[in-house]
């Protein structure tokens, strides 16, 4: 079989094996790469740094387990940063699957790494509310109409960090980590642009390019995919060297990301070589 024919007939299962190997092998040998934050990610870091200690932050985990590998590292990095700065974090979600993610972040990061932080005073779980933009709209007018109690049933008025909140405008910044609709776009449209509340966040790499038009006038910054998470982690490690001892999931996963990207680019080039050779042959005929 000639080379162009062989390329054309390459069994897709071989491609699957190549991809699997390009991801699995780096996970075993764990290559490490240094990273630095690009301006669009650095803007998020700088905003968190500039807020006075004790600022109320709404962290909306608008995603489920299907996109957790990209967005969980962002959530962890933001929580680590926010708590180190002394900010008060309200966790919330517009996705039903997001409840499990909130529990994961609360248990594995807040309670595990900051056992001295008190629920209700330093962080709170506001749970899930349906309605997407409609829910945000109601929260802009009267937060407690939409969220009368936290996820555990405690009245918001009984929680020190939420007692004086009347609407979303009482938050210093809204951070949304989004896998789609509803998500960061809805927070910008229904809260940021109308209420003048700074909105920033992260998105899966599928969603992030669509949100670039909002930067910088309507969105402080955005972390795009695993690379964005890795950049934020690098900014965090630079600003807080004590975090270098912690596991930074995005930084670790950049190894397989690099190798698999190279494999895919090589596959695309190979496919095009086969196509060009075949075209040359048919022109000659």
């Amino acid at each position, binding site marked *: 079989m000639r080379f162009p024919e062989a390329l054309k007939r390459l069994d897709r299962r071989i491609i699957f094996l190549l991809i699997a190997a390009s*991801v699995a092998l780096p996970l075993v040998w764990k290559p490490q790469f240094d990273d630095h934050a690009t301006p669009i990610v650095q803007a998020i870091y700088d905003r968190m740094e500039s807020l006075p200690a004790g600022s109320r932050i709404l962290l909306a985990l608008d995603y489920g387990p299907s996109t*957790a590998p990209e967005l969980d590292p962002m959530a962890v990095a933001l929580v680590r940063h926010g708590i180190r700065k002394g900010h008060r974090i309200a966790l919330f979600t517009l996705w039903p*699957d997001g409840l499990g993610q909130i529990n994961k972040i609360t248990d594995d990061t807040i309670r595990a790494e900051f056992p001295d932080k008190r629920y209700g005073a330093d962080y709170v779980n506001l749970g899930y509310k349906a309605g997407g933009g*409609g829910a945000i709209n109601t929260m802009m*007018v009267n937060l407690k109409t939409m969220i009368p109690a936290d*996820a555990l049933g405690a009245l918001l008025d009984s929680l020190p960090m939420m007692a004086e909140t009347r609407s979303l405008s009482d938050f210093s910044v809204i951070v949304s980590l989004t896998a789609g609709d509803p998500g960061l776009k809805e927070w910008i449209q229904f809260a940021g642009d109308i209420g003048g509340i700074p909105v920033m966040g992260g998105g899966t790499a599928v969603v992030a390019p669509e949100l670039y*038009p909002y930067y910088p006038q309507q969105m402080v910054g955005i972390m795009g995919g695993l690379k964005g998470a890795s950049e934020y982690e690098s900014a965090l490690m630079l600003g807080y060297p004590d975090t270098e001892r912690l596991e930074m999931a995005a930084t670790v996963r950049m190894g397989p990301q*690099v190798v698999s990207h190279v494999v895919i680019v090589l596959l695309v080039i190979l496919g095009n070589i086969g196509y060009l050779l075949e075209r040359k042959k048919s022109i000659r005929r």
Partner: protein
Amino acid sequence: MRRNIPLIITFITGMVLILGYFVTRGPLHTLYESFSDYFAIITVFAFILGGGNLIKVHLRRIANRAKDWRYSMVTMVGFTVTLIVGMFKIGAPGGWGAAVVEPESWLQFIFDGIFTPLAATMFALLAFFVASASYRAFRARTKEATILLVAACIILLGRTPIGGWLTGWLPPELSFLDLPNLANWIMAWPNTAGQRAIMIGIALGVVATSLRIIFGIERNYLGRDE
């Protein structure tokens, strides 16, 4: 009545929510707040409708012994067990007053052990297919396709450390050709331009369609006349 009342409801709801955006006080604004709240509540009933429809479809398949009816039984068992465990908060240390997805509850177990791996792996499968599709279909056949291909490759290499390694040797005067810088520039400027053009087009489409729906010109959502 079957078509007129829904059209009136659409008109009133739409107009209240539009006018309430501009009128920030008074009875209209109170109605606007209430409609926002009602909207969120009704969307939850859509989840219940979805569950009900699932039961209807799969029970019919089982009753008629249709193709793959045994798998419909798997769906029904998964659905029923999760529903009972969740609705009755079985295993939740806090009982009826506990959070719905309380750590240590059986629903959290189902979420961690069943929902999470299934949801995550379904999406992870796409990585293989996107690689296979890239190899088979991504061809520089035309000028436009070549531009798309080159942009994609710059992004793929530039958004990883390998990009810096490949072009890091360039002198400072040519640093704009460094792959990471090129990737960032593409995202910040041409990508933003293209996405903005699409966004403006969509916004105009949304405005036009919303007006058509509110004024009853667009009625497809009502279905066919019986």
